[in-house]
């Protein structure tokens, strides 16, 4: 019997275009198509609660891809994602509620504003590297949150703002399902854009800056331009994610964008895999769903061990930390690498030699 996992056999590329495709093998393309189809069809079968969780995962994935472009691909650590999400959310909130713009204009505009703010805070990256840059982006986090919570006349101060769901004509994206599809389409576009980006000139330059900045400079990459550009693109996606999140929860307030959110996003790309687009999606789903799964487990066990709930309530942070440490020790390249290992194993299965 033919090994069902062997796909490379008899695949010949006769021109460079075929060889440079993202998915070179027809069967893999069909598989991807099928997976996308599954995700498109799944709200039909799931409850609203599950669809809502999936929506949150999707929004987080857009933000995580954004952060991964900056931290995973360009090597510039940022602890300011939380605040950048806030910039996106607030921009969209202000534009839709105070200026009456539609979501379809406000969301890209929110991305653009966040991108510009991000690029601005990215300027120190020319001089600062590694931990020092991390501290500089921490400053962005603090400054932006300070502005948001004090600029009462525009941002509503600590009370925040209330948003509406987007509409097309008379249709409102009120149901969980409709918002899921909105997120799904934007995530799809984000993923395709990022995948393309990293097989062309600008994306390659980002990776060059990460791997060897001196060599990158000598082969003709303007370090300053590309670092700021990385902040720009990354913040654009984070801003769009922020806008989506704002319109989904229908409220923006400063405590939703605290530093712990930044850390959570960093954890997503660490667990998912630095420098991997799909890793960002896996990581986003993992970190978003972890507390939910944890709660379910506690609920399940509390019947048999009544005292357990009290102890496990505070366990979320502990498990969170533990998982990150385990990933750093055992698989620093994250879920994406684990998935690739599994695929590689089956490529030679059942004779793994």
């Amino acid at each position, binding site marked *: 019997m033919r090994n069902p996992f062997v796909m490379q056999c008899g695949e010949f590329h006769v021109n460079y*275009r075929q060889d440079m495709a993202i998915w070179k093998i027809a069967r893999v393309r069909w598989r991807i198509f099928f997976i996308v189809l599954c995700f498109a069809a799944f709200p039909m079968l799931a409850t609203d609660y599950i669809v809502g969780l999936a929506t949150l995962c999707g929004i987080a994935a857009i933000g995580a891809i954004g952060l991964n472009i900056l931290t995973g691909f360009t090597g510039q650590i940022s602890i300011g994602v939380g605040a950048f999400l806030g910039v996106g959310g607030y921009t969209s909130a202000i534009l839709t509620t105070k200026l009456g713009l539609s979501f379809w204009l406000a969301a890209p505009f929110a991305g653009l504003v966040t991108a510009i703010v991000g690029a601005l805070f990215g300027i120190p990256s020319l001089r600062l590297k590694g931990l020092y840059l991390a501290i500089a982006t921490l400053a962005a986090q603090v400054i932006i949150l300070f502005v948001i919570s004090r600029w009462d006349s525009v941002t509503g101060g600590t009370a925040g703002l209330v948003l509406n769901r987007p509409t097309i004509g008379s249709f409102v994206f009120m149901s969980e399902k409709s918002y899921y599809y909105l997120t799904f389409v934007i995530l799809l576009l984000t993923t395709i*854009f990022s995948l393309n980006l990293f097989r062309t*000139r*600008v994306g*390659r330059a980002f990776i*060059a800056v990460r791997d060897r900045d001196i*060599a990158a400079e*000598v082969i003709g990459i303007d*370090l300053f331009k590309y670092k700021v550009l990385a902040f720009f693109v990354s913040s654009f996606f984070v801003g769009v994610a922020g806008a989506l999140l704002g319109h989904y929860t229908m409220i923006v307030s400063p405590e939703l964008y605290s530093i712990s959110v930044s850390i959570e996003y960093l954890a997503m790309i660490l667990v998912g895999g630095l420098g991997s687009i799909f890793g960002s999606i896996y990581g986003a789903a993992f970190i978003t769903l972890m507390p939910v799964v944890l709660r379910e487990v506690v609920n399940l066990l509390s019947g048999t061990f009544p005292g357990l709930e009290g102890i496990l309530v505070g366990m979320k942070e502990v498990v969170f930390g533990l998982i990150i440490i385990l990933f750093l020790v055992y698989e620093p390249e994250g879920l994406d690498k684990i998935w690739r290992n599994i695929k590689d194993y089956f490529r030679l299965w059942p004779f793994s030699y």
Partner: protein
Amino acid sequence: MGILQVKNLSLRFGGVVALDNVSFEVKEGEIFSLIGPNGAGKTSMLNCISGLYKPSDGEILFKGASITRLKPHRRTVLGIARAFQNIELFPHLSVLDNLMLGRHVRMKTGLLAGGLYWGKAQKEEVEHRRKVEEVIDFLELEHVRNVPVGTLSYGLQKRVEVGRALALEPELLLLDEPMAGMNNEEKEDMARYIIDIHEEKKTTIILIEHDMGVVMDLSNHIAVLDFGKLIAYGTPQEIQTNPRVIEAYLGEEHAV
């Protein structure tokens, strides 16, 4: 007039004088070697030419125009490419991507076009892929095309390093010890590649190398640095018989 002129170049780090009033000229289409004992300032010289160091004094002219104040990436656009002594490849990228990066300044695709990968961007990628394949063919790297560079052997990495510089289609190629740490066979291969580059592509080459046999065989002209000073300049025959060069390499009592 030479393609590259270095005029009264000095480079100081605090009290340390790395280069002291060095002047020389590289003629178009020649192989020009920079030699000298360890710490003589050869790599510092290349760093000044490629723009990583800012000289304290003096001037560098490329094709008659001063490049002394230009940033490194601007010099690359003019056609100066460099292969580093300590391999400075992008280890996680494949050989192909490393070479494509070498063509960075020859390409135009911007952020949006790249992300959409539509029409022009796609055509450009394919077009430059063809050019890169020529380099791969030239340096015989076909079998490792898709392998991440970090996993290659030292000798192959050195070759990719040269390939990346070559992918730029440079007018001036700076090679910093391309044969360091290689065995004889690999050295011969590399020497053959350098001669081929010189003859087929008419590229001007500045070579730093410690293997005197190679230097004497390949070079049209040689400049000798010692403690940051230019102590000799000439053809290989002239350099071999120059008493100051012998003194610098072997010590005073051997000097005739």
